[in-house]
């Protein structure tokens, strides 16, 4: 069989195989991923599996061809290699086919990316708002309190624990107070850097109670029942980076309301230092940080970014709004 025919055959077979697999399985049949806890996560998983099948088939095809050639065309007495410098048709085939596959992949995922990072959640009116403040090495959360607005006396604070209601969009605004951190929810396939100087807005929606999380095996294989989803800092932020965790509790609406109401209205002051208490005069100092934020997010169009492609008109300039009162 010539390589042309071989490539054509496998080119036909690949998408077919992928489609078959995708139709036959759902979720995470190969157990490659942590448990999914949001609709977006499940969408991403489908994409991951599509790519697993496409690249997997390519991988197997290429490695098999390689091994076969090595065996079949190993030097033997009297054999002479075929003298050829190439073939235009073959070359075109294996240029155009992968190009098509890649472009299809690119187009296929574009909508998903938009939904994940830019679009307004469908039932935005029902959304809750949370501000996330990352600092070395903890996660702080601010809720607007009963009046629904930030920067009022009834704001509620929490450190290391985030509680959100199930099945409602959660609009978060990410900020970093010292270095870059990254807000990573493995079970939500959600990651966004928290960058000093940026107020990054995103949303997610949990559709699974954290108490319903499947048991997780520890190093000895002992299954542990956890009642929270993990919040992970995924961007190197210093010596305790790997310990910068928090817990995300996804609870029914009424539990959420109760919890928020019970949270303190002040936050203990974080130390003015990056390197820890013992050296608080060097390192980065919070001169003024934008805790006091008069801007109201609720009800506003979601984000300032992506105006070009995604047709959102509002672009609030964080520095322009009067949000820099001294902390």
């Amino acid at each position, binding site marked *: 069989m010539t390589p042309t025919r071989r*490539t054509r055959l496998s080119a036909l077979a690949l998408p077919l195989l992928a489609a078959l697999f995708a139709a036959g399985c759902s979720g995470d049949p190969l157990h490659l*991923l*942590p448990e999914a806890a949001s609709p977006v996560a499940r*969408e*991403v998983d489908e994409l*991951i599996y599509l*790519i697993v099948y496409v*690249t997997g088939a*390519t991988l197997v095809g*290429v490695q098999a061809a*390689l091994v076969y*050639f*090595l065996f079949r*065309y190993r030097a*033997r007495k009297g054999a*002479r*290699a075929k*003298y*050829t*410098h*190439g073939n235009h048709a073959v*070359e075109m085939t*294996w*240029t155009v086919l*992968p190009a098509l596959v*890649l*472009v299809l*992949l690119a187009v296929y995922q*574009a909508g*998903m*990316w*938009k939904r994940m990072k*830019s679009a307004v959640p469908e039932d935005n009116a029902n959304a809750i708002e949370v501000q996330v403040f990352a600092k070395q090495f903890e996660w702080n959360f601010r809720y607007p309190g009963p009046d629904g607005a930030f920067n009022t006396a009834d704001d509620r604070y929490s450190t290391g624990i985030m509680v959100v209601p199930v099945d409602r969009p959660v609009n978060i605004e990410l900020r970093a107070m010292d270095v*870059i951190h990254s807000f*990573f929810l493995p079970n939500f*396939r*959600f*990651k*966004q*850097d928290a960058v*000093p*100087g940026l107020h990054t807005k995103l949303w997610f929606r949990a559709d699974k109670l954290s108490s319903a999380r499947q048991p*997780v*095996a*520890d*190093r000895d*294989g002992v299954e542990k029942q956890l009642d929270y989803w993990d919040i*992970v800092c995924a*961007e*190197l*932020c210093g010596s305790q*980076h790997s310990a910068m965790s928090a817990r995300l509790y996804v609870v029914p609406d009424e539990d959420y309301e109760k919890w928020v109401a019970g949270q303190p209205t002040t936050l203990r002051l974080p130390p003015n230092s990056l390197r820890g208490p013992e050296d608080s005069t*060097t*390192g*980065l100092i919070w*001169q*003024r940080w934008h805790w006091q934020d008069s801007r109201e997010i609720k009800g506003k169009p979601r984000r300032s*970014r*992506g105006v*070009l492609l995604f047709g959102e008109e509002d672009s609030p300039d964080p520095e322009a709004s009067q949000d820099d009162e001294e902390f």
Partner: protein
Amino acid sequence: MSGATHAASHDDAHGHDSHHEPGFFRKYVWSHDHKMIGRQFLLTTLFMLFVGGALALIVRWQLAYPDTRIPVLGSILEAMYGEGKGVAGGDVYNMAFTMHASVMIFLVVIPMLIGAFGNFCIPLMIGARDMAFPFLNALSYWLMWPALVIFSASFVIGGGPETAPGAGWTSYPPLSYLGGQGQTLWCLGVILVGASSVMGAVNYITTIVTMRAPGMRMFRMPLTVWAMFITSVLSLLATPVLSSAMLMLTMDRLWGSSFFIPAGLSQGLDVTTNPFAFASGGGNVVLYQHLFWFYSHPAVYIMILPAMGIVSDILATFSRKPIFGYRPMVYSISGIAGLGFIVWGHHMFQSGMNPALGMTFMLSTMMIALPSAIKTFNWLATLWRGTIQFTVPMCFALAFVSMFVIGGLSGIFMAATPVDAHIHDTYFIVAHIHYVLFGGSLMGAFAGIYYWFPKMFGRHMNYKLGYVHFWLTLVSFNMTFFLMHVVGLHGMHRRTQNPFTKYVYIDGMLPLNKAMTHGAILLGCTQLLLLGNVLWSIFKGRKAEQNPWNANTLEWSAAPTPTPHGNFGPSLPTVYRGPYEYSSPEVEEDWLPQNRDLTATAGAK
């Protein structure tokens, strides 16, 4: 023709050169001969490979046996940092992975592929007597040394691991803005290696454009030379951007210039003595990332293209078959170089960059997988109906193809932006990096070492040992790095020293981490076979003939072994054909060197 005249004047210059042997210093140390500079680069980088490897093992040890004393390497750490510091927790860990990557990228892979093979091969393969600027060439090697000294000093300058560079090889501010003095040295070291690269690049471009032997048209150059040429262009255009980023970061650190530091953050400068203490703000954290990746994405191709060229040459030689699709190969190298400048944003999908911008970078990133795919298919087709000889260099070249495919395919996962949201900054990325840079670049470099050693040192390496080295490397490499895809998809994030205690879901991956560490230890020890083999063979290896592989390219067919100063004897070779005329029907043997004049022999008959 400038090439011809230049070559002619060289002829005279070197005619009497052979009369007086240069002294030891001029011959082995401050040598202007491209071959000696190539050897110097090779041995230096081979040594640095072990420094980088040791740092990697510190990282791996911590991930398998967190916060326990490291055997052997622990004593070195204690010697550096004092009693009780033989444990890889805390700042030691951050220092170790930062310096591991920095050493491997800046002091091993780039200078080995480009400095060692570029220097040694380019003039020999295009039929030139030396590089265009021999002095600049020597300077580019010797600039490595201050960089090396500065990097070494950065480990210990503040007395402890907390002042060593620890912000990753990417060194994003503000973290890198805060680090100890070691971080400043790190920036300076990177600027120096950058300068060394640029000097090399200028030299290679000039040499390739102006000094090719008569008949050596561009499209008769071996793919190694093509790859070095395009790589040099990349390096010339991209490196200055990195250097500026480093300079700006240094100024931010030392003088409060605030290129990258936004309003609201400032270093704790003493207001009473430092006039700059108030001058803070106005900078942009993400700007650094743009500058860094504008260099560092092309840099990953700087690190793979030469290996691709080397592998192409070796595959053709040992399949005894012309490379399949020579021109498509050249075009895809160029395509990679072009596209390589517009994909940098794929490292920043989750950085806060506009997601619409992310979408365009996603498209270009998908497209850059294409030339790599084309090259892979062409390599396979080169093997097809060849007569494959499994020499040691060939084995490594085949391993390159096989491993690079895995690295290329994992790139598609990350290019898919929604998937990247999950796997960015996890071990999946680490797996990708190592499949392309170890499985790719280093396998290619190993192939090159075994292939050109007979020409470089006039002796053969020990090939039995070579096969052992090959199999152990292949097996332990996959043992170490394949599992990283798995833990990465499961959400184990990178640059973490002991995530097991904080995260139950990662705790379950400790056994896999142990397996990877055991693979890594084996992989590290295996490379001692290479080092031993090289050192032993330089002095004791079997003497090599001029063209042991029956290869077509000029370094084998025209340059004697050992190769004298000036490379080619009294007159330069004339080139009659392309580099891959293996199994040509024109001759009985299965090779037809580039410089063999068939008309002359036909006339004589």
